[in-house]
């Protein structure tokens, strides 16, 4: 079972992210010294004796939060989570902190991400678990409160190092998700639609950044050649902000399209965008701008008009 889990999580590559030196550094940063390891050794049996109770404390804390239901309602995830939490405590108490230990922590972080468990909520549950352990230790060392506290402190140091690893795992995983989503958004590239012979419409929706603006220029010029476009209506209705960099890029796009023999009409600049561009002092006088998409298409029809037989047949107005 453990092997299976390792295979499934292989691409996560803890080895790549975490070397032995890194673990050493983390333990050092956490202030874990030899006396702490010794202290943990002394309370190991105490922790293991009430293992189920401590694991239960973790999930009891989660149970009261609606955000955690995604995890709690999934028996498969829960089973794995319980098993990993159990292994987690055993590993923490055992006193050997090696590569397997880190990988186990990564699996846990990954699992909580899959269950969309909030980092703050995880922290809360983790604390509940530590309290449960602390209570047992303090009970056992009731006559030697200072000694009990020292041992619990040692255990807590490891717990904090541990927390750092799990949270890093959750963050790394989350950043990966964000990267994948960004990629997906990029791939939904801006389409160039042919409305009639020689007329393209380029609806731009969402955030324009420099990278996307570059991609847009590229796509538009290729579309102009592919569709033999003479007029392009670039509709910015769906764009809520344009900064000076992007505005300059749009101006360049228009200039490049002109070099290829196409006229670009820009439509749908919202009043906010228009005002911010004016405030920024971007010179848009070289752009052919028209209020809305309809107006833009009408203007395009006017430019293309004489070539269209439909309009040629119209009697001349005397």
């Amino acid at each position, binding site marked *: 079972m453990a092997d299976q889990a390792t295979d499934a999580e292989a691409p996560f590559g803890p080895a790549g992210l975490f070397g032995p030196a890194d673990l050493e550094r983390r333990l050092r940063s956490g202030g874990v010294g030899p006396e702490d390891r010794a202290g943990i050794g002394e309370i190991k049996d105490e922790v293991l004796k009430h293992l189920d109770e401590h694991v239960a404390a973790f999930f009891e804390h989660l149970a009261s939060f609606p955000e955690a239901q995604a995890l709690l309602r999934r028996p498969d995830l829960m089973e794995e989570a319980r098993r990993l939490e159990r292994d987690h405590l055993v590993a923490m108490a055992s006193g050997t902190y090696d590569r397997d230990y880190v990988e186990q922590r990564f699996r846990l972080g990954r699992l909580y991400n899959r269950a969309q468990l909030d980092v703050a909520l995880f922290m809360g549950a983790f604390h509940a678990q530590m309290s449960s352990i602390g209570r047992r230790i303090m009970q056992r060392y009731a006559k030697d409160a200072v000694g009990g506290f020292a041992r619990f402190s040692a255990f807590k140091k490891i717990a904090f190092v541990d927390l750092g690893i799990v949270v890093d795992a959750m963050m790394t995983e989350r950043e990966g998700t964000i990267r994948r989503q960004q990629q997906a958004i990029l791939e939904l590239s801006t389409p160039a639609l042919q409305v009639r012979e020689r007329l393209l419409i380029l609806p731009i929706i969402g955030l324009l950044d420099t990278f996307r603006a570059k991609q847009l*220029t*590229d796509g538009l*010029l*290729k579309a102009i050649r592919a569709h033999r476009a003479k007029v392009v209506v670039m509709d910015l209705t769906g764009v809520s902000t344009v900064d000076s960099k992007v505005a300059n890029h749009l101006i*360049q796009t228009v*200039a*490049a399209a002109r*070099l290829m023999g196409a006229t670009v009409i820009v439509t749908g600049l919202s009043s906010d965008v228009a005002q911010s561009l004016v405030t920024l002092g971007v010179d848009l006088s070289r752009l052919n701008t028209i209020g809305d998409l309809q107006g833009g298409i009408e203007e395009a029809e006017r430019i293309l008009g004489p070539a269209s037989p439909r309009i040629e047949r119209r009697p001349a107005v005397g």
Partner: protein
Amino acid sequence: MSVPILKQGDVLIASIQSALTDRDLLQLKDELAEKVGRLRSRGVVIDVTALDVMDSFATRTIRSIAAATRLRGAETVVVGIQPEVAIALVELGLTLDGIATALDLEEGLDVLVEVMEARRRDR
């Protein structure tokens, strides 16, 4: 390599086939200016479809060809600028202002007719 200049009605078509040296470009300029006068042409089409690089000298020469032929009574249209070339030119600030451009030769001839008519009307 010199550029062949074809006569089609009252239009001259200069079709650039490969990358040109500065000397070739200057020769093209001289030839066009001379032929426009000799053949009484009204328009010039410069086809750059085959070029995947255009530098500042090439664009400057094209501009001066347009200016010179206009003085000799002919309008110039540049056709076939590739997307990559267009982006590069714009990034270098070489936007060929004041010169008509078109997608390809066919389109260029149409544009030339429009430009020539507009010019005739202006007179």
